[in-house]
C-alpha cells in the first residue's frame, strides 16, 4: 500500500473518538504509573489487559502503545526528579537530568525531556512508516555474530558516558557484565553463583539493580545534604520554558539522537539501551558544550530521550513483523494481539494494514497528547521538589520498596535491593558511577548468549566476528570509539597535569 494513503487511513482510524479516548487513557495512565519507582509499563499494561477483552483490537493496541510510551516518559520524570531510572535507557537521562534538577533547573530538564521525546517519537514514527519493511529485513540480517558486535559497541559507548576516568567507566561496565552471569546459565541450565537460593536462579531483576544503585544509593547521600539545607537556595522553580539558546542547543542532539535511535530500535532487545548509550557517547564527543556533560547539560537530557523514544517507536517493527518482543512490555503487546487471534508475523503488515497504520498514526496522536498533557504538569512535578525533603525521602524509600515488591511479589527482592542500595552508596564513596554498571548488567546476559551461540554455529571459529560484513563494520566502529575515548582522556590528562602539579605544591 502507498505510504501516504496508508497513513491517511490510519489517521482517520486513530482520530475516531473511541480510539482517541483510549489513546488518552493510555498515555495518561502510562505517565502516571511510569513516575512511580519500579512500577513501569509492565504493571500498567497487565492491569489494562483484562479491559482490552471488550475493546476492538485497534483501540486496545492504541491504548497499550500509549501506556508503553507514556510510561517511558513517566520514567524520565522519575529520573530527573529522584535519580531513579525506570529503564536502563533512562539511567542515561539521569546523568544530566538529575544534576539539572539539583541545580534548580528541574523544570527545564523536564521540558527538554518532553520536547526531545516528542521529537524523537515523531522522527521514529516517520522512519517506521517509511522504512518498516526495510527495518524488518534489517533485523533479519542480524544473526548472533552481528548482535554480539552491536552489544560490544553499546558497551564501549556506555563506558564513555561516565564523567570520571574512562578506566573506571570500563571497569563498571565489566563489573556489570560479570554480575549479570548470576543465575541459571540459559545455555546449559547450570546454576551460577546463586548460593543455592532458588530466587537467584533467574538472576537479579533489573528493577532491583536500578532502584538499589540509583534510588537507594542516592537517597542515603542526599539525606544529610538536604538536612544541611544544601540546595534550597537560588532555585527558580517557576521557570521551565527553555531560553532561545537552550532551544537551539537541543535541536542537533534531538536529530542525531532520533537517527541513532530509529536504527537501533529495530534490533529487538538491545535497541533502546544501546541507542541511548551510543547517542549520548557520540553527542559527548561532538557537542560544543561537551565540557558540561554530566554536570547538567540540556543536550545530555535531550539526546538519550530522543534516541530512546525513536527506538521505542521502531521497536514495534520487530514486535509486529517478526513476533520477537524486545522487552517484557512488548511481550504483553504480542499477548494483547493474540487475544484477538492476530499472530504477529510477516503477514501482519498486509493482513492487518488498517491496524498497522492506525497504530502508526496513533503514535503521532499519542505523542501530541503526551506533550499537551505533560507541559502543564511540569509545574506540578517541580512543585513536588518544594516539599521538604524530610517528608519526601521516607516516602520515596517506601515507593521503592513497594515497586520492587510488585515485580515478583517476592520479599527476597527487597533484601536484594537493600544489598544493592548499600553497594550503590559505597560506589559513590569510591567514585564509581552506576550508569555504566547498569548498562553492562543489562547487556551482559545478551552478550554472553549471542557469543556462545555464534561460536556454536561457527563450529568454534572466532574469526566470523571480523569476516562477516555487518559485524566486522560494527567492530571497527567500536575500536574507533574506544581509541577516541582513550585518546581524549590522555589529552585531557596531559592538559590537566600542570594545573594539578601546581595545586599539589
Amino acid at each position: 500500500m502507498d505510504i501516504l494513503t496508508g497513513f491517511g487511513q490510519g489517521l482517520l482510524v486513530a482520530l475516531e473518538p473511541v480510539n482517541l479516548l483510549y489513546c488518552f487513557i493510555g498515555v495518561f495512565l502510562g505517565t502516571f504509573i511510569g513516575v512511580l519507582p519500579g512500577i513501569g509499563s509492565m504493571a500498567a499494561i497487565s492491569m489494562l489487559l483484562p479491559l482490552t477483552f471488550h475493546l476492538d483490537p485497534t483501540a486496545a493496541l492504541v491504548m497499550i502503545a500509549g501506556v508503553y510510551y507514556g510510561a517511558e516518559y513517566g520514567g524520565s520524570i522519575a529520573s530527573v526528579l529522584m535519580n531513579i531510572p525506570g529503564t536502563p535507557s533512562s539511567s542515561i537521562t539521569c546523568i544530566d537530568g538529575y544534576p539539572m534538577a539539583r541545580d534548580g533547573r528541574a523544570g527545564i530538564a523536564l521540558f527538554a525531556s518532553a520536547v526531545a521525546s516528542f521529537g524523537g517519537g515523531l522522527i521514529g514514527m516517520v522512519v517506521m512508516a517509511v522504512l518498516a519493511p526495510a527495518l524488518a529485513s534489517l533485523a533479519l540480517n542480524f544473526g548472533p555474530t552481528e548482535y554480539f558486535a552491536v552489544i560490544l559497541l553499546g558497551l564501549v559507548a556506555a563506558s564513555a558516558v561516565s564523567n570520571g576516568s574512562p578506566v573506571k567507566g570500563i571497569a563498571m561496565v565489566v563489573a556489570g557484565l560479570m554480575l549479570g552471569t548470576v543465575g541459571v546459565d540459559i545455555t546449559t541450565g547450570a546454576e551460577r553463583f546463586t548460593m543455592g537460593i532458588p530466587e537467584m536462579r533467574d538472576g537479579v531483576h533489573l528493577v532491583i539493580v536500578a532502584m538499589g544503585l540509583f534510588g537507594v544509593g542516592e537517597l542515603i547521600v542526599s539525606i544529610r545534604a538536604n538536612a544541611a539545607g544544601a540546595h534550597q537556595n537560588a532555585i527558580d522553580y517557576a521557570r521551565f520554558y527553555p531560553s532561545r539558546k537552550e532551544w537551539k542547543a537541543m535541536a542537533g542532539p534531538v536529530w542525531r539522537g532520533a537517527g541513532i535511535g530509529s536504527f537501533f530500535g529495530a534490533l529487538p532487545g538491545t535497541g533502546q539501551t544501546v541507542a541511548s548509550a551510543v547517542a549520548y557517547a557520540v553527542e559527548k564527543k561532538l557537542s560544543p558544550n561537551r565540557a558540561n556533560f554530566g554536570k547538567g547539560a540540556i543536550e545530555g537530557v535531550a539526546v538519550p530521550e530522543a534516541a530512546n523514544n525513536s527506538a521505542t517507536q521502531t521497536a514495534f517493527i520487530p514486535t509486529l513483523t517478526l513476533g520477537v518482543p524486545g522487552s517484557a512490555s512488548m511481550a504483553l503487546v504480542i499477548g494483547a494481539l493474540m487475544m484477538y487471534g492476530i499472530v504477529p508475523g510477516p503477514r501482519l503488515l498486509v493482513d492487518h494494514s488498517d491496524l498497522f497504520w492506525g497504530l502508526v498514526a496513533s503514535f503521532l496522536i499519542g505523542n501530541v497528547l503526551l506533550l499537551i498533557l505533560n507541559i502543564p504538569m511540569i509545574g506540578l512535578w517541580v512543585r513536588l521538589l518544594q516539599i521538604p525533603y524530610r517528608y519526601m525521602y521516607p516516602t520515596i524509600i517506601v515507593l521503592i520498596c513497594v515497586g520492587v515488591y510488585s515485580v515478583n511479589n517476592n520479599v527476597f527482592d527487597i533484601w536484594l535491593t537493600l544489598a544493592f542500595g548499600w553497594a550503590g552508596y559505597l560506589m559513590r564513596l569510591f567514585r564509581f558511577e552506576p550508569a555504566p554498571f547498569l548498562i553492562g548488567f543489562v547487556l551482559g546476559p545478551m552478550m554472553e548468549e549471542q557469543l556462545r551461540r555464534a561460536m556454536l554455529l561457527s563450529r568454534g571459529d572466532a574469526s566470523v566476528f571480523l569476516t562477516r560484513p555487518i559485524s566486522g563494520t560494527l567492530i571497527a566502529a567500536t575500536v574507533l570509539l574506544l581509541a577516541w575515548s582513550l585518546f581524549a582522556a590522555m589529552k585531557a590528562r596531559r592538559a590537566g597535569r600542570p594545573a594539578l602539579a601546581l595545586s599539589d605544591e
Partner: protein
Amino acid sequence: MRDFLRRLRRSGETARPPHAWLGALGGLALLALSTVFVIGGLELGTGTPRRLGTGAFPVITGLALAILSLAVIAGDLRDSSEAERPDWISFAAIGAALAIFALSVGRIGLVPGVFLATVTASLPDPSLKFPGKAALGAVVALGCWGLFIGLIGLPFKPFAWN
C-alpha cells in the same frame, strides 16, 4: 555530592583525608569480587571454543575486571582530592527501613509495613520530631493502600495478621 562537600568545606568543616586510600579500597573490593568469579567460573568449567562452558564468561569478564581494578587502584592512589564523607547513620537507617518492610509486608500486611518502614527511614533527620514522623508514616501508609491496592489493584494484602 561533590558540590555539597565543597560547600561543606567552605563552611569551615574539618579537612578530609585524600581520596587515595578510599579509592584504593574500592579497587581492592572489585579485585576481590573478580577473584570470586574467576575461581567460581573455573570450577564451573570453561568448555571448548566451540561449546563455551558455563564458567567461560565469568572467567573472561573476571580476568578483565581484575586487570581493570589494578588500573583503578593505580589511578586512585595518585588522587589527592579530598575523600567523600561517609554518613553511616543514614546508611544504617535506610537499610533498616528496607529490612523492616521486607520482614513485615508478608507477615502483617502492606499498611503496617509501610508505616514502620516510613518511620524508620525518617529517623536520621532530626528536623522532624517523633509525632511528625508517626503522622508521616500514617499518611504514607494510607496513601499506599489507596494507590497500590485501591487504584492500581496490585495483589497485596493491606492487613495480614491472623
